[in-house]
């Protein structure tokens, strides 16, 4: 399902790759096999080099890459036997949040995640991954289900934000998010949160409180998207690169400030370059984390979870 979208900073890689393809076509007539191998080595080096030195804004672009794996891809590839469950039992089903039961490493878990679409049609259906209150209330239902049947919860975060619509406000967007924050803080089962793409604001955090907060190498997580930050603080949409730098929104930034616990490495070139490797990595990391959390007594687990969030913030006194 490749969209052939090339990010600007990937251009030198793409150029070299097409040169290699051209040379391959001539390999029967000319003895250029050694030169091709040399170029292939160069392209690997170049890719590794570019990806080692990404700016924060470039990572935001990778996190938004249209070929990047989304929640349902992980639920079907990293997990087994995914059974989707629908609805908040009050208003309607919100396709911007998917949820259900799944197995990972032989263990059943409750899964909840934001879901984006891949094209215009599916994006309209999924509302670009921007939930309405009923999405958060569906998640709330899942948390209760998890506790009732002693199942751990895995949440996958990937949203440009909660939907800022008229009906969303009417139905209590703020209340729906707030209630989840409280519920996830007291839930008596382990919760693992993984930021897999975009983690924008309260819309992401609304399913993002847990015992372990993990983040893919090229995901971003902050209080606001760089473009909106630019429009508010710089009063122009043009300063998104500077805003991304100022917000320190990458995994390496956030682990330093205790906002996340662990960075999950992506294949060189991003998760979309080699989705299968990414699916395997995520599976093994989640299994490892679940093994550790399942050894902790539930009272201690909840106390530790709360204390982890109490410790967040920096001030002078």
């Amino acid at each position, binding site marked *: 399902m490749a969209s052939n979208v090339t990010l600007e900073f990937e251009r030198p890689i793409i150029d070299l790759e097409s040169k290699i393809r051209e040379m391959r076509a001539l390999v029967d007539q000319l003895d250029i096999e050694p030169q091709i191998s040399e170029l292939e080595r160069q392209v690997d080096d170049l890719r590794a080099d570019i990806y080692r030195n990404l700016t924060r804004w470039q990572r935001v672009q990778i996190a938004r890459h249209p070929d990047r794996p989304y929640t349902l891809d992980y639920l079907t590839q990293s997990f087994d036997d995914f059974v989707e469950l629908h609805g908040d039992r009050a208003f309607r089903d919100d396709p911007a949040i998917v949820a259900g039961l799944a197995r990972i490493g032989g263990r059943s878990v409750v899964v909840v995640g934001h879901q984006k679409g891949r094209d215009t049609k599916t994006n309209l259906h999924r509302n670009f991954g921007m939930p309405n209150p009923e999405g958060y209330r569906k998640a709330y239902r899942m948390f209760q289900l998890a506790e009732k049947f002693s199942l751990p919860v895995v949440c996958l975060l990937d949203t440009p934000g909660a939907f800022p619509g008229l009906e969303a*406000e009417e139905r209590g*967007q703020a209340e729906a998010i707030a209630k989840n924050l409280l519920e996830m803080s007291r839930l008596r089962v382990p919760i693992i949160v993984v930021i897999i793409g975009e983690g924008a604001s309260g819309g992401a955090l609304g399913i993002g409180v847990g015992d372990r907060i993990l983040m893919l190498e090229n995901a971003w997580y902050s209080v606001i998207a760089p473009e909106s930050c630019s429009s508010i603080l710089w009063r122009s949409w043009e300063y998104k690169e500077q805003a991304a730098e100022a917000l320190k929104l990458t995994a390496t930034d956030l682990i330093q400030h205790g906002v996340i616990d662990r960075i999950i490495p992506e294949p060189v070139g991003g998760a979309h370059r080699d989705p299968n490797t990414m699916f395997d990595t995520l599976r093994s990391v989640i299994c490892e984390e679940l093994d550790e959390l399942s050894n902790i007594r539930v009272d201690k687990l909840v106390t530790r979870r709360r204390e982890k969030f*109490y410790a967040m*913030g920096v001030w*002078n*006194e």
Partner: protein
Amino acid sequence: MAWFLRKTKNIAESQQREMPDGLWTKCPQCSAVLYRKELEEHAYTCSSCSQHFRIGSTKYASLLFDAGTWQETDRHIRSADPLDFVDTRPYKARLKEAYAKSDLPDAVTTGTGSIEGIPVSFGCMNFGFVGGSMGSVVGEKFVRAGRRALEQRMPFIFISASGGARMQEAALSLMQMAKTSAFLSELAEAGLPYISILTDPTTGGVSASYAMLGDVIIAEPKALIGFAGPRVIEQTIRKKLPEGFQRSEFLLEHGFVDMVVHRSDLKATLARVLRHLGGSVHA
């Protein structure tokens, strides 16, 4: 034992703060001329159209607490700049200016006091300090004030007035939503009342965390309350929003606040609710 049976003594000095400058002011809503004394008697609302003026923590404390019972806490906690945030100006410079031009401790003031004889732990946001934005200081003082309620078995009362999270603290300000809500889950387990009062405006991250988590939620008349700001919504739906949208009365109608209370009646209402929540069944 019910929370109200154990009382804590608070020796306090009532804080005298200056009234707004000038002998009179004009109501921006109905243009009535309001004299200082009149304004004070009406709890800083317009006596002819009931417009509620934005006031800070000092005035709320003087309106709500029995004489001589208010005592401020944790005033020494100040904002830091953990991310070295720079937009068109450094965050450090913005903070320095904000501290210099007001005598507010930050976007929140906390303390203890008594409401008709009931001791409470209290917090109130200051919209006048960087738009009442929630950074690390707001989260930390919220939890400390709440902790004081929990340890001394008092109700916790918190007045919100905020445009949302403090952008210059980025993810750390976002995490204050989780931090405060996590604390409220602990307070709830202890069976202590938490009353949330929403004033103009209560939006963004503050609305989507502690503001909406009160056992009882009271709003002042016509306050703007919502997650997304009206301008963002208008840009999204490309329509003008209807009159009264996201105002207190609208939230009351849609079931998201318990009551809309005139500021002059706030103290008496709080006292009535607290006396009920004190309970009659003794464990």
